[in-house]
């Protein structure tokens, strides 16, 4: 009782100290009201929705100064700085045919992308799933310059401008995801549950993300909390013909004045996928479940967010064979199954983070503490004894201080690090890696300067990584080594009229991973025997990235060329040897590799046909080195036609999407790869909404409509000739209720 009274008192005290900001959103041309705009306070991760008269009210502990972001369909998003002395405001928005521009948070400065000196791709998961994706990896690969390397459907991970695995850092709301990503057959360790949007930084980004951010960063952002003082409930079910698969998600959100929480859960189950010839890829089945929770608390001078995500996946490893001559009928079978059989992986991930911000007179302090646990189990030859069983524990911190010196000048200083322990479970029959620990520490300083139409940014960072093993391992004595990195990033962006010009030079580094240094064993997931190399040095990369954007009312254009120079590039090379019928591979380094290319995109929205959207993106990448680098993605054109269709009976907001994707042939291959021919895919989707409050969504469509037979160059099943999925019809039903 006493405890309850204390809580009641505490909540009362909070509400007594809250301030109320009220306002109205109006059209800048004719001063008419704009209904249902979204008004967000960036610093508090808080939003509300205006009523039908454009009026809104936010009750919160407001910082002395904060950024208000206002967005509405058919209007240009607006960012304004407000002080807590203002309690009533009128906001005018300019009409625009652009889609709503949201804040990017993965960059050095959380703001609208047009003010960022670093080019960041941002897409909401809803937009990525206009034509539904089976996995999060498939959805993310629709972004320009981003691809997906896969082992069937259940195992996939992102590829950014040709870089993947340990060269790409994945973040979940500021928490670094560590999940044995060095392994080509280890999945991304994250599901689409509760993800609101995905941001991608292409190229080195060690200034913000430290060691390993050499190829790029994938930053997953959770769905927002419910609007202030509201409750939301959502349920969705997606069913697919190809895998007889189903994905079901349930979410519940509640927000008060200062306290809010989200809860969500999902279950997904897929049988073997169907090939274009109507046979099935043996053992490509997978199932996963996940839960996600978030709790937010706005206090008098700060905001706290506690987030926890758990996911578990059981996935068959298709295309597994020890035979020198591959029997096709073992890889492609006539019966579809979802029963667990060898070989398979079981992996589980726990992601926990405490993120606290304190507001000060001229800035803010933010502290993020996190813990991740990854357990990877591979059952290969026996059903009761795993081949590999590893536990990875990662403790992280990130403390940063941001200060606004004046209206033009601000800076951010921070320290960031993690302590990682990798352990083998003694029950396993193989130990691919020794028991080891890794300690990262880094410190950085970034300055921001705004002058007229220019936003400038420059920063420098020092990192240190210490790697230790506690035991002798397969002939190697204990290992203790320190690696250091000094990195920078400098850039400028100019916004004038409809045009944005951006240039950024950045560097990144990656210390050798314990797997590259000390591996000595079978890795059945990749069907090879891997041997490490103690002489590897850190990889270093420097990239120049230029962006030109035109944001006209009817034509949006983006041209984004880049050049990335990488030193000490580590790769795995086969030697002429077999152990237990598996080929032997050793880790080696190239002195330098050059990657260059361009991402190009346009969106045409003709004045005479506002119901039509023509969208195209072209991703081109080439590499040059003394020896061809493997797994360079196919250049591609992703193009789409989107039609807005008038309301039919009780179906509203109807959209028809037709995608035509062309993947160019890939002839630039390494000695251990086969060339890949071109292929083309056609996908179609229809989205509609119904219900009194337009809260029932129906999404139906077909992927690979023409049942094309193809193998993507980044498929790990390419070398055994196992094709990708055939035609796949899907239906997704979603119900969202809010009060």
């Amino acid at each position, binding site marked *: 009782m006493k405890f309850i009274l204390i809580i009641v008192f505490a909540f009362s005290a909070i509400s007594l100290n809250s301030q109320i900001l009220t306002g109205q959103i109006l059209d800048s041309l004719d001063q008419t009201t704009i209904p249902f705009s979204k008004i967000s306070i960036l610093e508090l991760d808080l939003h509300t929705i205006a009523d039908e008269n454009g009026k809104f009210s936010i009750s919160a502990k407001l910082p002395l100064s904060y950024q208000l972001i206002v967005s509405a369909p058919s209007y240009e998003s607006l960012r304004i700085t407000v002080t807590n002395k203002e309690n009533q405001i009128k906001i005018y928005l300019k009409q625009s045919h652009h889609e709503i521009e949201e804040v990017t948070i993965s960059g050095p400065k959380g703001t609208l992308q047009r003010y960022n000196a670093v080019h960041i791709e941002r897409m909401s998961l809803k937009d990525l799933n206009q034509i539904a994706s089976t996995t999060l990896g498939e959805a993310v690969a629709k972004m320009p310059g981003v691809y997906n390397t896969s082992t069937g459907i259940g195992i996939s991970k992102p590829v950014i401008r040709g870089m993947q695995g340990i060269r790409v850092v994945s973040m979940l709301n500021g928490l670094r995801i560590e999940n044995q990503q060095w392994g080509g057959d280890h999945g991304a360790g994250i599901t689409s549950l509760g993800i609101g949007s995905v941001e991608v930084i292409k190229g080195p980004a060690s200034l913000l993300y430290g060691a390993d951010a050499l190829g790029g960063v994938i930053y997953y952002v959770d769905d927002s909390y419910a609007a202030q003082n509201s*409750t939301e*409930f959502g349920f969705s079910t997606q069913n697919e013909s190809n895998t007889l698969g189903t994905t079901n998600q*349930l979410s*519940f959100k509640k927000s008060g004045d200062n306290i809010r929480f989200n*809860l969500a*859960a*999902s*279950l997904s189950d897929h049988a073997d996928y169907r090939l274009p010839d109507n046979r099935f890829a043996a053992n490509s089945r997978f199932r996963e*479940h*996940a*839960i996600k929770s978030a709790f937010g608390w706005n206090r008098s001078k700060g905001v706290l967010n506690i987030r926890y995500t*758990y996911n578990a996946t059981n996935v068959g490893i298709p295309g597994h064979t020890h035979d020198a001559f591959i029997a096709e009928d073992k890889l492609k079978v006539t019966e579809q199954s979802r029963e667990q*059989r*060898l070989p398979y992986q079981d992996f589980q991930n726990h992601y926990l983070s405490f993120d606290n911000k304190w507001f000060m007179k001229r800035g803010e302090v933010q502290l993020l503490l996190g813990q991740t646990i990854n357990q990877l189990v591979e059952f290969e*030859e*026996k*059903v*009761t*004894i795993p081949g590999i069983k590893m536990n990875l524990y990662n403790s992280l911190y990130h403390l940063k201080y941001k200060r606004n010196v004046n209206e033009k000048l601000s800076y951010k200083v921070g320290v960031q690090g993690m302590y990682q322990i990798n352990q083998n479970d003694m029950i396993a029959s193989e130990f691919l890696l020794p028991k080891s620990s890794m300690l990262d520490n880094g410190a950085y300083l970034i300055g921001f300067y705004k002058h007229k139409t220019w936003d400038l940014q420059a920063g420098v960072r020092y990192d240190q990584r210490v790697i230790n093993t506690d035991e002798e391992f397969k002939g190697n004595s204990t290992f203790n080594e320190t690696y250091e990195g000094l990195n920078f990033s400098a850039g400028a962006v100019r916004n004038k009229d409809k045009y944005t010009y951006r240039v950024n030079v950045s560097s990144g580094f990656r210390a050798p991973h314990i797997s590259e240094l000390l591996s000595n064993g079978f890795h059945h997931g990749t069907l090879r025997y891997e041997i490490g190399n103690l002489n590897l040095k850190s990889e270093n990369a420097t990239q120049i990235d230029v962006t030109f954007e035109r944001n006209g009312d009817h034509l949006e254009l983006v041209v984004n060329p880049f050049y990335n120079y990488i030193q000490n590039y580590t790769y795995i090379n086969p030697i002429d040897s077999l152990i237990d019928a598996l080929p032997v591979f050793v880790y080696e380094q190239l002195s330098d590799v050059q990657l260059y290319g361009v991402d190009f995109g346009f969106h045409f929205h003709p004045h005479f046909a506002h119901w039509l959207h023509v969208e195209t993106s072209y991703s081109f990448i080439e590499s040059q080195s003394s020896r061809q680098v493997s797994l360079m993605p196919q250049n591609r054109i992703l193009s789409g036609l989107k039609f807005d269709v008038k309301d039919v009976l009780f179906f509203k907001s109807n959209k028809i999407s037709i995608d035509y994707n062309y993947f160019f042939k890939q002839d630039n291959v390494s000695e251990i790869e086969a060339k890949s021919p071109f292929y083309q895919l056609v996908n179609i989707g229809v989205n509609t909404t119904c219900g009194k409050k337009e809260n029932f969504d129906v999404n139906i469509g077909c992927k690979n409509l023409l049942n094309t037979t193809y193998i993507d160059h980044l498929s790990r099943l390419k070398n055994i000739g196992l094709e990708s999925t055939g035609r796949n019809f899907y239906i997704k039903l979603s119900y969202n209720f809010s*009060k």
Partner: protein
Amino acid sequence: MKKQMKKIGFAATAVLFLAVTSCKKDECHECHYDMNGSEVELGEKCGNELEELEASGYASNGTTYDVHCHEH
């Protein structure tokens, strides 16, 4: 409305429960060992017997053979 919220709460709890719990059956598998290039079937083994066979192997005429219990 209160009833509706109760229903929603119940549904959310049920889904969370299903998401985090799973039952593990006592697995059974056909087992064999390899001798002179051919497979010798041992029949279906379950539970502790299955675990013991995979861990310790199968002894025959003074030789211990590695046992596999799966379709491969």
